[in-house]
């Protein structure tokens, strides 16, 4: 029995389809959801959300969100959600360099430091998801 998964962001409905398994970046580690999971409401961290459907695996880079598991569906609400194929790798690399340069400065305001760190983490995540997508395409499991 498949699970209905909706991924919504403030700007759009990013994904809506039946899948077999969802692995989410929970705040306290990865979280796998299979059919018939108990109702759950949790916050999600910055990370890679993987969807398995049949033998194919797709990955989203998501940031700042919630996961709601209901008997009839799984809903992911994220501030941003980008499919591996949608990520602009050049831009992500550029963002990483920029964040690294900022972090090399000798003194930073705490707010700037936090922003640069968050930017770096996000850029690294996007690069990871995008590169994996380029390397493997939608992955196939035997």
């Amino acid at each position, binding site marked *: 029995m498949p699970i209905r998964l*909706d991924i*919504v*962001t*403030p*700007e*759009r*409905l990013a994904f809506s389809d039946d899948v077999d398994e969802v692995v989410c970046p*929970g*705040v*306290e580690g990865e979280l796998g959801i299979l059919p018939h999971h*108990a*109702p*759950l*409401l*949790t*916050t999600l961290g910055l990370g890679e959300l993987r969807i398995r459907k049949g033998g194919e695996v797709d990955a989203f880079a998501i940031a*700042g969100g*919630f996961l*709601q598991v*209901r*008997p*009839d569906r799984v*809903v992911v*609400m994220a*501030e941003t959600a980008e499919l591996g194929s949608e990520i602009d790798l050049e831009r992500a690399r550029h963002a990483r360099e920029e964040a690294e340069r900022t972090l090399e400065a000798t003194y930073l305001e705490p707010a700037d430091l936090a922003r640069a760190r968050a930017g770096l983490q996000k850029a690294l995540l996007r690069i990871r998801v995008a590169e994996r997508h380029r390397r493997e395409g939608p992955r196939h499991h035997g």
Partner: protein
Amino acid sequence: MASQREIRRRIASVRNIKQITRAMQFVAASKLKRAQDATLAARPYSDKLDEVLADVAAVLGGEEHPLLAQRDGGRRCLVVFTTDRPLAGALNANLVRFAAREIVEHPGDLAVVAVGRKGRDALRRMRVPIAAFFLNFGDRPAFADVLPLARLITDDYLSGTYGRVDLVFPRFISTLTQRPELEQLLPVQPSDDTAGIPGNQFIFEPSPGAVLEQLLPRYVATRLYQAVLESAASEQSSRMVAMKNATENAADLIEDLTLTYNKVRQANITREMIEIASGAQAL
């Protein structure tokens, strides 16, 4: 009666105006399509967030978070959404009038946060205190664009500067109708937990309080984002209709002027004929 040349010049200038209003009408129509799509696309997220908030609030009760707690007194903040640019029909005038009536009917300590240049300028002329203003959300506002606005309002609310925050924005109902509406933003009022399964059946990870802590700031930002989107869709549709009317009026005016022009021309010809005829007779 004006001379032929003057009338001809007026016809040419009205024709130019008509070209411009017509172009603006088409530009607004295509932007409206996008703005409408964006408003619709944003709805699933905000509906879900509403639902989750209701689930959490059902478990926690009302007073678990400062953004939820009802307060007595304190300064009231109105966040007023208007357009940056003019020529959007009566949209801004209606909205400012609505906000002004709200201010007059509920006198008291009040400040306005203006989103959009037109509202800021109009309210400033009415001597309403403007605490802050945000401009240039543009035709395609992104969620990240509203975060500074959300942060400012949330921080001022938490620090006690405001006791209550309301939004005043044009609700996009249809291409022909946009209605000014008032919506309470803070303190947050969760809707009733009616959708789906009751909140107390959920497992909360790590805890209901922690989920709420993350949820509320996003909820505030989402409500603001929606108001920005509604406002953008209203602007384009109102401008499209206003420019359509202007184009039609220009066409009517051109028709009238052409008629007058022909009459003047005919009168001139007749007069010249009479002059020639009477001149010939005199010989």
